[in-house]
């Protein structure tokens, strides 16, 4: 019968107060676990999505909004930019790769993004089935889109105007699924990708559609539905030169050399009517904004832990008064002072350790639940990821147990058994 077993049995003999202490500690640890996991995962997701993109060029406005809309696909775009200006930037010597993005439509809340093959190479996309989009109105869909919308190759659907909602459906053209991406673990899992011309055509009258065909350097394309479009050439008499009319939403840029970091954004912001925003910088800024809330919650959780520690202390201290006689009897049976010390401090450690373990597990479980109910699948959190940092939570739990138990344990160590025994 070791001191540890005596402590264990003693805790079980007062299940209610033990449970209360464990709950308090589990609650505090749980909140800390959730904060730790969520902030780590959000940070990783942010990095993952902007990994190979050095700069985003878009219309003037909030740089954070530009990043959110063009990298994470959460906020609305800042506006459109002329294709011509974008093409000039894309051909700049500072630029290694430039990816045009055209947003504006959705299907069941999933963004339809018009882009080109550079998007595939910058995100290193692969298809698990079918092929990448090539002709107009062909789409390649992310793995999560395929799973959630039950779309498969050959299926067709209509896009709706805007980034959410399905009231204003473009009935003239149907998109056709030609490929499904392998799971990438980033935003592309939740996107519908097509070519830019398709997005344009959805919004423009047919005359512009033809212009887009020319713009595609004579590659041409074929409609599945051939002649069903209405050709009404006289609707827009004030139409200007084709390229200047064309607009895209944003341009993702990969630099050619580190030198570009200094030169290129300044060049864009000063010499053009456009705005350049760095994903890394804006992510950091966003994170520092969220960080304030995380800090507050962390203090809150630490406060709960402190209250838990005090509760464990009071519990041990009070029970020590009742158990004084028990401990004195143990001494008469041959227990040493240090054994009594261990019995008392083990009780504190067992309580906090149990609380910590339950708290960590609870934190994971709750985060998984949160992830399940999250609307935005772009930033879905998972509870099944364990971090090395959680060992610190464990250590903190242990420290609280020792902290709460040390004074009662010292009292047990120092107690004068003759005095206690002669009182009864």
């Amino acid at each position, binding site marked *: *019968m*070791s001191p540890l077993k*005596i402590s264990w*049995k*003693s805790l*079980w*003999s007062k299940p209610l107060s033990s449970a209360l202490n464990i709950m308090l500690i589990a609650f505090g640890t749980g909140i800390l676990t959730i904060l730790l996991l969520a902030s780590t995962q959000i940070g990783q997701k942010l990095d993952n999505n902007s990994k190979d993109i050095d700069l985003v060029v878009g219309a003037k406005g909030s740089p954070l909004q530009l990043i959110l809309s063009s990298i994470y696909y959460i906020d609305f775009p800042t506006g459109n930019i002329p294709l011509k200006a974008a093409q000039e930037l894309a051909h700049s010597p500072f630029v290694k790769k430039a990816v045009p993005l055209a947003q504006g439509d959705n299907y069941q809340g999933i963004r339809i993004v018009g882009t080109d093959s550079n998007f595939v190479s910058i995100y290193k996309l692969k298809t698990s089935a079918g092929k990448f989009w090539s002709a107009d109105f062909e789409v390649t869909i992310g793995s999560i889109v395929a799973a959630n919308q039950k779309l498969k190759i050959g299926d067709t659907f209509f896009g709706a105007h805007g980034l959410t909602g399905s009231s204003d459906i473009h009935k003239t053209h149907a998109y056709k699924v030609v490929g499904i991406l392998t799971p990438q673990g980033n935003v592309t899992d939740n996107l519908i990708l097509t070519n830019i011309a398709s997005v344009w055509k959805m919004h423009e009258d047919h005359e512009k559609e033809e212009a887009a065909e020319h713009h595609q350097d004579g590659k041409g394309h074929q409609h599945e539905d051939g002649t069903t479009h209405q050709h009404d050439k006289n609707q827009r008499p004030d139409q200007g030169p084709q390229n200047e009319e064309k607009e895209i939403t944003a341009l993702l840029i990969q630099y050619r050399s580190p030198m570009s970091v200094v030169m290129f954004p300044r060049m864009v912001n000063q010499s053009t009517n456009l705005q350049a925003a760095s994903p890394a910088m804006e992510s950091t800024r966003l994170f520092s904004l969220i960080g304030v809330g995380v800090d507050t919650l962390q203090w809150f959780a630490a406060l709960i832990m402190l209250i838990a520690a005090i509760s464990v202390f009071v519990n041990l201290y009070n029970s020590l008064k009742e158990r004084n*006689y*028990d401990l004195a*009897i*143990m*001494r*008469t*049976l*041959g*227990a*040493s*002072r*240090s*054994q009594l010390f261990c019995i008392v401090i083990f009780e504190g450690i067992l309580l906090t350790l149990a609380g910590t373990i339950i708290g960590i597990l609870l934190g994971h479980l709750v985060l998984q639940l949160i992830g399940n109910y999250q609307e935005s699948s772009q930033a879905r959190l998972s509870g099944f990821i364990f971090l090395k940092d959680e060992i610190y939570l464990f250590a903190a739990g242990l420290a609280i147990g020792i902290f709460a138990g040390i004074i009662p344990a010292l009292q047990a160590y120092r107690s004068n*058994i*003759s005095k206690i*025994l*002669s009182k*009864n």
Partner: protein
Amino acid sequence: MISIKSVSHSYGHAQNIGFKDWEINNGEQWLLLGESGSGKTTLLHVLTGILKPTAGEVNIDGTSLYSLSSRELDQFRGRNIGIIFQRPHLIRSLTITENLVMAQSFARLPADLKRVREVLESLGIAAKKNAYPNELSQGQLQRVSIARAVINKPALLIADEPTSSLDDKNAHAVLDLLMQQSGLNQATLVVATHDKRVKDAFTNTYELR
């Protein structure tokens, strides 16, 4: 052999209590008689190594108790001295068997369930071995506390007022058990009491005045 030599103790500035020398041969059964406040508990605590006297020496089977270190004294007490208190006090969170095994392990002896059963059987409470203390009657608890005192076959068995809260019938029953157990375990028995009912059972008496 157990002896106390020129032992005296004083609590703080209070009056010094002196005890006359006492020698007990192995296997003897002694009555320690004295009114409340005569220093009976003090002498018992001195005798069991719980209270270091201001002066004097206590010797049990050649070991001078208060020359031992605190840890050695704890262990010596666990192995060689069994104490029965006026009111039986067991650890509530442990079963009867666990209470006895705990006494074995505090004396740094291996857990010996055979010995536990043997002692419980000799006291007629083997049926309660897996019960918790709060499920037992006062009389049964008293038996368990005797069992706990003799579990490690101590050289000295000390009972402090074991009968004072009992009626005549139970007082005699407990006394019989103490005598029987001290004989069975070849332990020297010292019963401290102010209860005149038990007087006749003993031939050796150490009286405090």
